[in-house]
Structures are given as C-alpha cells and as structure tokens.
C-alpha cells in the first residue's frame, strides 16, 4: 500500500524535543551501563581477595598512592565518565527550543471544564 502526499501531511510529526530527548536518554542509559560494567566487575576481580592479608602492607600494589584496583576501577572510569559527559554536553545533546511556559494554562483549562460541568448541570 503506497502512502500518498496527503497521508504524510495528515500524519502529525513527533516533537523534536521528544525525539532528541529520547535519543539522549538512550545514550545516557548506555553510559550508565558502561560505567557499571567497568567499575563493579573490575573492583570485584582485583579488589576482593580470598584472603584480606593478600593486601597486606608488603603485597599492596599502588598507583599514585591509591590501591591499584581503586585507581583502575574507580578513578580511571570516573575520568572517562567525565570525558563522555563533556562529549555529551557539548557535542551530542541538541539545543532545543523548549517553548514559552504557559503559566496558568492547566488552571485555565480546569476552570473552563468546571464551568462547562456547571452549565451541563443546569
């Protein structure tokens, strides 16, 4: 079945704020999952020993004074998350016009409905 020009004209278009917002939401969920899958498994594999004494003073590995699992499992993904956030804020997220606020629009609608109901009642 072919779609005619008139059909296309009749079909309303999604609002760009909704479309952009949805796309950005998917990006954010992926960033969150990426952070989760990096941080928790890494820290668990390298920071949870069978015997805590494996992390005693002679065996502890450090990077810049931090236990190495903290550095690679928390600090590095934290920096990476900030880089991705910067990319998101300045290159991915769209500048949408959110429109003027319609202060009182909801109240006006409600008052109109109330009046309509009162008139119906009469």
């Amino acid at each position, binding site marked *: 079945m072919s779609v005619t020009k008139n059909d296309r004209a009749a079909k309303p278009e*999604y609002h760009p*704020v909704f479309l952009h917002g949805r796309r950005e939401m998917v990006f954010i969920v992926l960033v969150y999952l990426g*952070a989760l899958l990096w941080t928790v498994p890494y*820290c668990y594999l390298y920071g*949870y020993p069978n015997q805590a*004494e494996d992390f*005693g003073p002679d065996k*502890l590995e450090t990077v810049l004074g931090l236990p190495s699992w903290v550095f690679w499992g928390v600090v590095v993904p934290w920096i990476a998350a*900030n880089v991705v956030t910067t990319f998101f804020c300045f290159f991915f997220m769209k500048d949408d016009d959110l429109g*003027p606020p319609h202060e009182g629009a909801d109240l006006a609608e409600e008052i109109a409905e109330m009046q309509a109901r009162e008139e119906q009642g009469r």
Partner: protein
Amino acid sequence: MSESVLLFPSLVPLFAQTTSNAALYTFVLYTAAVFVVAGFSNKLLQSRSFVSEYFLGSRGLGMWAFALTFAATSASGGSFTGFPSLVYTYGWIVALWIASYMVVPICAMGLLGKRLNHVARISGSITVPDVARDRFHSPGLGVLSMSLIIFFMTVNLVAQFKAGAVILQSLLRDVEIFQSLATIPLFEGVNSQYLVCLLLFAVSVIVYTTYGGFHAVVWTDVLQGFVMVAGVLIMLPLAISQAGGLESASRQLAEMTPPRTGTIKVALTEPAKNAMVIPAGTWLVMPSDRYLDEFQQWKGPEQQRLAQALQRGELTQGQYQRLEQALEKRDDEIKQGPPYRLFRVVHQSVIAQGQTAPRARNGEGQLIEAAIDAVELTTPAQIVDQLEKQRDHALRAAQAQLVDVDNDLAALDSSANEQREQLLRRKEHLNERIAALESKERFHENPLLLNYPFVVSQPQMRDYVTGAHEKGHYVSGPGPHSTEVLGFLPLSLAVSFFFMWAISGAGQPASMVRLMAFKNSITLRRSIFTVAIYYSLIYFPLVVIFVCARVLLPGMEGSADQIMPDAAVFLTHQIGHGWLAGILLAAPFAAVMSTVDSFLLLTSSALVRDVYQRNINPNASEKTIKRLSYLATLLVGTGAAVGAINPPEFLQNIIVYCGSGVAACFLGPIFFAIYWPRTTKQGAILGMLAGFGTHLAMYVLGYFINGSLSRPIWLLGFDPVLVGLAASFLTVWVVSLITPKPPEELVRKYFYKNDDNPAAAQT
C-alpha cells in the same frame, strides 16, 4: 571548665578554643549572608507571577544557579557527616560504594531534564504532582502524587531538622556559653543544647525560605555549594601532606587491623575534691600483662555469652564462629604486641564528687552508673605512634599551664600566702610531670602517667565479626565490619549502590522540581558538565581526605560522625591557621541547610498548589495564594521543627526509607509519562502504588523477620529501592499495555508538533 580538669592537662582538648571561635564566627557570618540573599529574592517576588516565582523561580535559572542548586540539594548533610564516617570506618572500599557518582550528573539531570522541563512548560505545571496530573489529565493521579510527596517529605523534614540541629550542636560544642546550657533545663526530657540548636537552625531556615521562596533557596544553595567545595579543596592537600603522602597513608591502612569496641572501668586513684570530667577523645593506657590477666578471666563468660546469643538467634552461626575464632587469637596478639594497650574514650564521662566509682553521661544528660564506652587500638604501630603523640600533647599542655601558674604567681598579692602555697604546689607537680614527659625513654617505660589520676580496669572489648586480627581489610573489599559476616560491601550491595545513587537520584521530586526550573537547554547541558566537575571535586577527594584522617586521628570508630569537624580542626591547627576550620565546619551545615530548604518548599508547594489551588479553589486570587504560600511554608517548617524536638526513634532509618521510597514511587511513572506516548493513567497510578507498596513491604517484612527497621528484606541481595523501582517500571508498562490507549489529544499535546501544542507550534 572545672578546676579538676585544669589540674590534669592531658585531658584537655587543646584545640577547643580554636574550634569554638571559628565555629561561632562562621555560623554568624553564614547566617547573615543567607538573610541578605533572602532579602534580594523577596524583591524578585514583587515583580513576577507569584506562584511560578515562589515555587519555581519563574523557570529562569541560569547555569550556575541551576547547577549548584541541583548539586547542593542532592548533597545532603550525610555527604559531610555520614559519608566521611563510612570512609573513616571502612577504608578504601567506600570508593566503590560511592563510585556511581561518576555518572550521577549525566543520569540524574540528563535522563529526565529536557523532556520534563518541556512537558511542564506545555502544561504550565509548577510542581511534580502538577506534571503527573496534567500529562494524564487525571486529578486522581495528582492527588496520589501530592499525598505521597507530603507523606515522604514531612517525615523526612523532621529527620532533616534533627540532623541540622545535631550538626550545629557539634559545631558549637566548645563554645563556653553553649556549654553552660547543658545544666539549664529548658524543656523536660530534652537536652537543652540540642533544643537551642534546633531553634537556631529552624528559625534561620524557615525565615529565609518563607520570605524569599524558590530564589532564596536556590541562591543560598549556590552559596552553600561554594562553601562545600571550598571546604573539601582546602582539606585535601592538608590531609595528604599531614598523613605523609597518599602512598604512606595507603600503606598504613594496609597494616591496620580493625579495633575492638566495648567498655572499660575507670576509677580515681583517690577520692577527689571536685567532680572529675573525662572528655570524649581522652586516651587511657593499660599494661598488656594486666590486660591479658583480665582477658583470661573474662574470656570464659564471654564464650558462654556468645553461645547463649547463638541459641537465642541474636547471632548467626557465621557471626558466632568468627567471634569465637577472634577470642581464641587474642592471647597471641596481646603477647606479641607492645607492652601497653591503648583505649580512646567515646563519650564524655564524669566521676562524681567524692566518689571513686565511675559514672557516665547518657544521651539524655542524666548521670547513671555505667562503665565507659571505649575503642581499643589493635595495630601495634598505631599504639606506639599514638602513645608518642599523646606524650607530646600532654607535654605541651603541661608547659602551657606552667606558664599560666608563673603568671598567676607574679600577679599575686604578697599577703595571699595560702594561695601562693597552692600555686607553688601546683607548679611543683607540673614540673615533675614535665620532667617525666620530656624524656621519651622515661615516658615509654611508664606511659601510665597519661592516665593520672585515673586507673583503668576490666576491659570488655569485642572484636569485629569481619576483619579481626587481619591486615589488609582497609585497602580491599568487602571491607571490615563489626557485625556483618559478609563485610561492609559484598558484591550484591556494590551493584545496588551503583544503581541507587545514579538512578534513584533521578527519581527525587526535589531534583525534578529543579529540572522544571532551568531557563533553556543550553543551561541544561552546561549545568550537567558543571555538576560533573563539581561532584568530581567533592566525592572522590572526600574519600582521600578521610582515608588520611584514619591515619591521623585513630580510634574514632565509636564517634565516627564527629570525624568531619574533628579532622577540620586538627588539620588547620597543625598548620597554625585554626580560623580556617570555620570554613570547613560550615560545609556540613551548609549541606543540610540546602537540603532542608528544598524539602520545605516542596512540601508547602504541595499544600498550596496541589491541595488548595488545584483541588479546592482554582479561582483563588493571587493575593490569597501569596498569603497561603507564606503561611504554609511557615507552618510546615514550624511543624517539622516541633516534631524534631522529641523525634521518634529510628530517625536515621526513616531518612533512608523516605529517600529511597520516594524514588521508587515517582521515577517509573514520570519516566514513562515523558518518553512513552502509550502510557495510560491507570499504568501511572498503579506503577506509583506498586513502587510504594513493594518498597514498604520489604521494610515491614524486614522489621518482622530481622527485628529491625534498618534491616529490610534484601531480595536476591538487592536493596528495596531497586526492587521497588523494578516493580514500578514493570507495572506501568504492563498495565498501560492492557488498558485502553490514552486519549489522542493528550498524546498529540505532549508528544507531537501540532496546533494543540502551543510550544511545539512555535518551534
């Protein structure tokens, strides 16, 4: 300060005066600044639409205002009291506990921000219940949302007021006039110091919030936001350098074994003329051989007590086994350790006039017969190091007192012979003490000098269930724990917390309101970036600071909530700039204030806008709404403050319950409302109830099964907020699919470009 305390300089906290002045000046200056901000905000109220300005700042927040109000509101008092105490108590593993703050800004602001602001502009919504009601054209959903917000926020407000008063109390604890309040009964059964702090805190927050509305809250948040980050950035280099570098701090943590907590008996060597005060934080010493003798006498009854606790179900099999093993190992640890054991007094205690038996002060300020709560260090290097620090501390205090005595003698009238004799006796005593403290060798041969005039006996100290006698727990997972067999952060909890901070943070109505208030999408994306940098400058540095504090200030496990003010005073005193402590001490106060003002306004907006204007009188004049708004904010604040005079037990648990419960209710329905056109009002209502019900059920079941409100049921090891959110999301989705499609005009209005959507039509 009593004469008896002055006689025994090792017991005097040297930094008290520095703290008192800094804290007092900070509090006065800070409160003055907040009132100035409120005054300016009130001017804005005169020139704009009242309701939108008072509750939403006319949707005109720029980048700094939006970013810092969002950040400051999210960072409650817990960020500067509870969180530091966790880092101090459990070590590096808390870095993983807090790690999801790396994505909190992008998740909590970006996930809903743009669309929620857009939808609120289309409908003209002022509050979160407004959004829910307008989006689905459902007064029922509006009433449900409003009821849940009032329920959670009112309960939470009482708890936050208490938190504010407690923080202020800890800031002013060394101010002399404030100390004298302890003896004046103002309100039966209530600690007078607490009551005065509650009054000061409540009046300042209620006045500026009522008078200035949303803009006052936002601009004080900005002020508070700067105070918080300044506090952290000043403390960070001080903590690292004073701990000898981060590498040294981590190595020392790796060496540490968890302390023991319990009670010791403290008595006077001879009856004293005056009452004797043992301040919190005093270090007391006991010879290891005597400790060993007394431990062997106590070990048998303790083993019996553990076996009985196991039979009664108070201990699990795992806890019992761990504690038994720790008891067995203790003999060897004491024999191989240094010749002295070291205890830190947890609460200020008093030995009454003329008595040799100890008395301890309980939370209500009454004197009761009790042993003294104490923490015992178990790491040999720490014991030796701390003994040396205490020697130095006592020596400096004695030298300072000797100078005072000399001055008094010089100023004495020639006829005051009796007084002169007293002073000369005191001088002789001080000289003897200084001579004994000056020689390291002499002191380490007999460190009991520190105890004078007390004698310590009958230590009844209990080991941690996880980590006792083992090194490495403070630099690895799951971290030590005094009661939990699985340690501080088992894997399932690590996943839960990673989810909780980032995702449930987005579901807080106080945050949602701010998402409805920014000016445009440029503001949003710049603010997300700003908050990302802001949180990076706060949360991980706090972990580093309090890891270092663990090295610098050992033995504070019994009063870890005090670690922030104590560390602030210690770090600044060490560099000779005690006044800086004022700025650092203001940070926790600023954090709790910025949370309370937001909750206060959120609750009053629910009453005025959602109860009165939307359900009772939509035609109310602006003048009426204005009066009601001031009145509601004033009444809600006053009510919460009155509730906090004698707050219910389990208050901290209530804060946790409310914070997670509100997210479980709101995130699912609001998320679907703005991103899924097919969502129906039935789906949203049932989703909200499912989140509320599931979350509540896990707490109620936890109370009956585990016997405590703080131990809810953990389904598959996951926190109730995760389960509540899952139930809510699933319910909204399923119910929306099986109920009739939502009205076409609503979907067109909020999702499509068309003439019904005035905002879209202009795009």
